[in-house]
């Protein structure tokens, strides 16, 4: 039985390793200008995303890599189910700290690039680097603050975007880049809002934690949670 509207996340296990590796490839491609690295990096990013969750014989099957990589979680191996967005202080980074390391890695890389860039490059170079800084720091902050504090997170994202615009101005001294920063800020705000308004189901096993996400309507999420509960329960 397929769980409608629920997707496995790449915050742990092999999918996380693939995501981190793809990030290294993408950043490496930016550095070395190898297009094959860029392409492989993006293919691997998509491959690290989960596509579906289904239940087969009291086992949850999480499918990744365009459906080619199944991760099986037997019901009796699961010690805990936690609906992260329903606890009072649900913090994504507390449960999945390694994903934070990936974002910190991107943030450190982009910051080093920004400060070592010479002054006379095309504005696109600075914009790309600042895009990574603004996006990764906003997402990192969003995952470090309890779910549900959307207003605070959006305000912090606005502040980060303003700081990004200032850093861009320091390098380019051109006002025509402001609309680009505004577009970047809108995309980041939407991303932060989306992260904070998803449903997060954490499954804890002896081998580690797994995250299922959903932005489906409430009734579908409830149905999926009930189906998982049946997997965990005694016959």
């Amino acid at each position, binding site marked *: 039985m397929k769980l409608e509207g629920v997707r496995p996340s790449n915050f742990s296990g092999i999918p996380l390793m693939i995501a981190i590796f793809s990030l290294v490839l993408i950043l490496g491609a930016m550095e070395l200008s190898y297009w094959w690295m860029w392409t492989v990096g993006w293919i691997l990013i998509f491959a690290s995303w989960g596509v579906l969750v289904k239940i087969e014989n009291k086992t949850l099957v999480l499918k990744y890599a365009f459906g080619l990589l199944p991760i099986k979680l037997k*019901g*009796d191996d699961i*010690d805990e189910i936690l*609906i992260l967005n*329903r*606890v*009072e202080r649900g913090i994504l980074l507390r449960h999945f700290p390694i994903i934070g390391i990936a974002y910190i890695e991107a943030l450190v890389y982009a910051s080093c690039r920004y400060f070592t860039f010479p002054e006379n490059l095309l504005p696109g170079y600075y914009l790309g680097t600042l895009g990574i800084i603004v996006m990764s720091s906003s997402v990192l902050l969003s995952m470090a603050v309890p779910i549900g504090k959307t207003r605070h997170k959006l305000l912090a994202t606005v502040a980060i975007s303003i700081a990004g615009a200032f850093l861009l101005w320091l390098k380019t001294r051109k006002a025509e880049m402001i609309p680009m920063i505004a577009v970047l800020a809108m995309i980041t705000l939407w991303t932060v809002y989306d992260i904070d308004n998803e449903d997060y189901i954490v499954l804890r096993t002896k081998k580690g934690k797994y995250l299922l996400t959903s932005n489906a309507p409430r009734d579908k999420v409830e149905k999926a949670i009930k189906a998982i509960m049946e997997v*965990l*329960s*005694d016959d």
Partner: protein
Amino acid sequence: MIRLPESMERIWTMRAKGMREIEIAENLGISRQAVNKSLKEAKAKLFEAFFSLAETFSWEIVRANGEKGFMVARGKCGGKATRVYAFYIPEKGIRAFFGNEIPEFILQHALEFGIIKKPDKRELINALES
């Protein structure tokens, strides 16, 4: 109220207090496989009990832990939304509490089971709500 069978409860309690499966097996003079099977059954029974309880009272599950035997749910009390904290207590069964009305014996239980490190109500709620 649901109670685990006596021998299963003993094994589950030893594990929940932090003993390893092999230590439990040696302690009780049974095989490690028997301990593992018993723990899996105990966990499934506890999940079943917590989910049934939530369904009976129309509570919304927030968190259910079969290893340490506790549940957090969202419920209604006198028309007001409230938190429900339920614990499986060996030899007693499940005990549920609303809001922060958590008695001293639950703090002691949570301490023994390694849910918290000191018997403090705020620490317990923090542990359950994060």
